[in-house]
């Protein structure tokens, strides 16, 4: 099989398509020089250069103006907040490269958005299957937590971010066509083995979005009871989930993060830094890329924190959440843009569009809620699919309205 694969002739288009989807999963951090450098970046840069040399790298004028507006706004904010210009430029360059590349590839290659989702989901399935098979040997790898499934990634949360859209996609397709039943079971097993609160939250959201279009009053009541039941069962059987929930509850109610676990500490300490940054710069923020300087400024105000936690500088670069980070870096406008984007592009009808929306919206909520990087390799791939899905729906709706008129 390997010989057959080695001798196989790949079209360049096929290479671009496959390597682009593979790059989504290359989120292994190799260095940090102001921004996180992931393993997938060389693939994206190389592919972008190939496309550039073949006149296939495009930028839409609206896309260009969005980046220019973000850059201008950030430079003004950075000026008032004393954020170094280099920090802004590094973020803008990263966002520009990733967004232009993924939008170009998604619009120039592949047959349809559904095909892209299917190809991505097959890769994700392979990652999940590998994770299950690798779990017994994980402790010998000396990489990440030994007892929780994290497949090829450093931690289970990354496994969740990068496979959640695939789970949503398979679940939606299964409901319509009864295909991918076994695949869903493999994902369910991998999520149980990952034992991640984010994973359980993501599964809950997928169920909720699927159910919203089908619910009557009694079904809503039943779903609510089912949701609470699942929550209670998770509290009992998953010690990891229990620790997260209880630590967060006690830390918030006592206003004391000194006894919380690292994950809870990361969210609450970054929320504290964001809150103070927002009070100082409510309208302009501190400019994109400026969060880490605010973290250094405010984190020392928290007293009673174990030194190990402070030394780790948890999520110092990404604020642990894109909602928090955008609030600190772009002021009140940041979360407003995110929420408007998510809610406007969610306004679609029809099975083909809902399948993509229901797969991606839970991912965005979980990912933006707990991970703040602007240009990790997967983000703009899914942003492009989500946006193009909405534009496609809107265009078809206009046409059908025009025909009926």
């Amino acid at each position, binding site marked *: 099989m390997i010989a057959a*694969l*080695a*001798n*196989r*002739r*790949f*079209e*360049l*288009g096929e*290479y671009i398509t496959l390597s682009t989807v593979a790059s989504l999963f290359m989120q292994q951090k190799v260095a940090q020089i102001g921004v996180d450098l992931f393993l997938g970046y060389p693939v994206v840069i190389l592919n972008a250069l190939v496309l*550039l*040399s*073949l*006149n*296939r*790298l*495009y*930028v*839409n*004028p*609206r*896309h*260009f103006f969005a980046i220019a507006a973000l850059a201008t706004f950030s430079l003004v904010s950075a000026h008032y907040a004393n954020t170094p210009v280099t920090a802004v430029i590094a973020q803008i360059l990263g966002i520009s490269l990733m967004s*232009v590349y993924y939008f170009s590839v998604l*619009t*120039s290659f*592949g*047959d*349809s*958005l559904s095909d892209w989702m299917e190809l991505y989901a097959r890769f994700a399935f392979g990652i999940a299957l590998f994770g299950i098979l690798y779990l017994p040997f994980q402790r010998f790898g000396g990489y990440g937590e030994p007892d929780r499934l994290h497949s090829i990634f450093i931690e289970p949360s990354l496994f969740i971010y990068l496979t959640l859209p695939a789970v949503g996609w398979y679940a939606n397709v299964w409901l319509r066509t009864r295909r991918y039943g076994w695949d869903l079971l493999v994902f369910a097993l991998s999520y149980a083995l990952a034992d991640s609160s984010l994973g359980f939250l993501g599964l809950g959201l997928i169920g909720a979005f699927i159910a919203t279009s089908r619910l009557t009053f009694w079904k809503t009541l039943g779903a609510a009871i089912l949701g609470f039941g699942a929550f209670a069962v998770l509290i009992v059987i998953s010690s990891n989930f229990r620790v997260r929930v209880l630590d967060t509850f006690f830390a918030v109610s006592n206003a004391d993060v000194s006894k919380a676990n690292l994950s809870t500490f990361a969210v609450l300490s970054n929320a504290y830094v964001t809150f103070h940054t927002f009070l100082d710069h409510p309208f302009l923020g501190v400019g994109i890329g400026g969060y880490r300087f605010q973290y250094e*400024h405010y984190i*020392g*105000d928290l007293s009673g924190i174990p030194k190990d936690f402070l030394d780790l500088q948890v999520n110092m670069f990404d604020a642990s959440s894109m909602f928090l980070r955008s609030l600190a870096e772009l002021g009140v406008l940041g979360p407003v843009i995110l929420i408007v984007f998510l809610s406007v592009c969610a306004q679609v009808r029809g099975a083909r569009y809902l399948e993509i929306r229901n797969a991606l919206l839970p991912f965005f909520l979980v990912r933006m809620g707990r991970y703040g990087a602007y240009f990790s390799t997967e983000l703009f791939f899914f942003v492009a699919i989500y946006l*193009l899905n909405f*534009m*496609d729906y*809107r*265009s*078809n709706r206009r*046409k059908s309205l025009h025909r009926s008129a």
Partner: protein
Amino acid sequence: MTIEQEAFEPRSRDSSVVIADYLRRSVSLSEILDQLWSGRAVIAACFVIGLIYGTYSAWTQGPHFAAEISLLPAESNSVDGNSSGSSALGLIAGLTGTNLGSVPKFTQFLSALHSTGVAEILDKKYAMSCRVFSGYCDQTTHQWLRRDGWRAWINGVLAKLSGLPDPNGPYTSTELAQYIEGSVEITVDKANQVVRLNYQSPKPQFAAQFLTLLVQTTNDYIKSQDRVVLRQYVNYLASQASTATNVAQRDAIDQLLLQQERKLMLTEVDVPYAASVLDGPTVLPVNKALKIIAMYGVLGLIAGALITLGRRHLNLRFGSWRT
């Protein structure tokens, strides 16, 4: 494993209308780079002009020096903190709403650095406005010169239009306070509470002297304000002590009097009152030349790129008008 490049050409794909529309409106980055390459002479010329202007700008700005002084809360802060908050007088003051001593001396010091009161003293004792705004003031006679130039003219016209006084007269203490607020950078080290004041000036000796005088004057300003209040307390308590007949009451007043006299004593001696200098002022040269030249060079590149793209865009528009 080989990759066939010939198969890279766009194949007939079932792309949706919206994707086709998106692509139709998009611009190829290769084309933009081609256009920029065709206008490389213009871009290179603009870049060189930017570098030359940057060099000229760095040269005309002259040398810059940064003076820095490190401060710590002075000893009197601890005396104040230990006594005032918990003392009977502090309690009385709190009940009457005056809340004496609730703000630490060091915080008062940091807030007062750019106050008009401090600026007034600096002006009176050291003619600081004249020295800071030296371009508009005769350094020997301390007489103000009239501000001229297009900016002063515009300010004058706008003030006249609004019925405001002439803004081009002598600089006031309020303007000096605003200048201090804008030009003295305060950095607090959260780990050890050391505060650093940083000030930049083309004159190294003046920069160091300015910071030293600012710290000294602000200390004196806080001290003199406290002295006035404490003297009144002491006078009042002394008169009460002389008239009180009840022994217990008299003892309590004596204790209060003792406390206030201790504080008053600190305002009478010549020691750092609110902030003491830990280090400095140290003066270091600030070399911004490379930064300025690089910045103007990049601006030149951007201007050249915009001219090249704009010229092509205008040519296309002009061509379409002709046809």
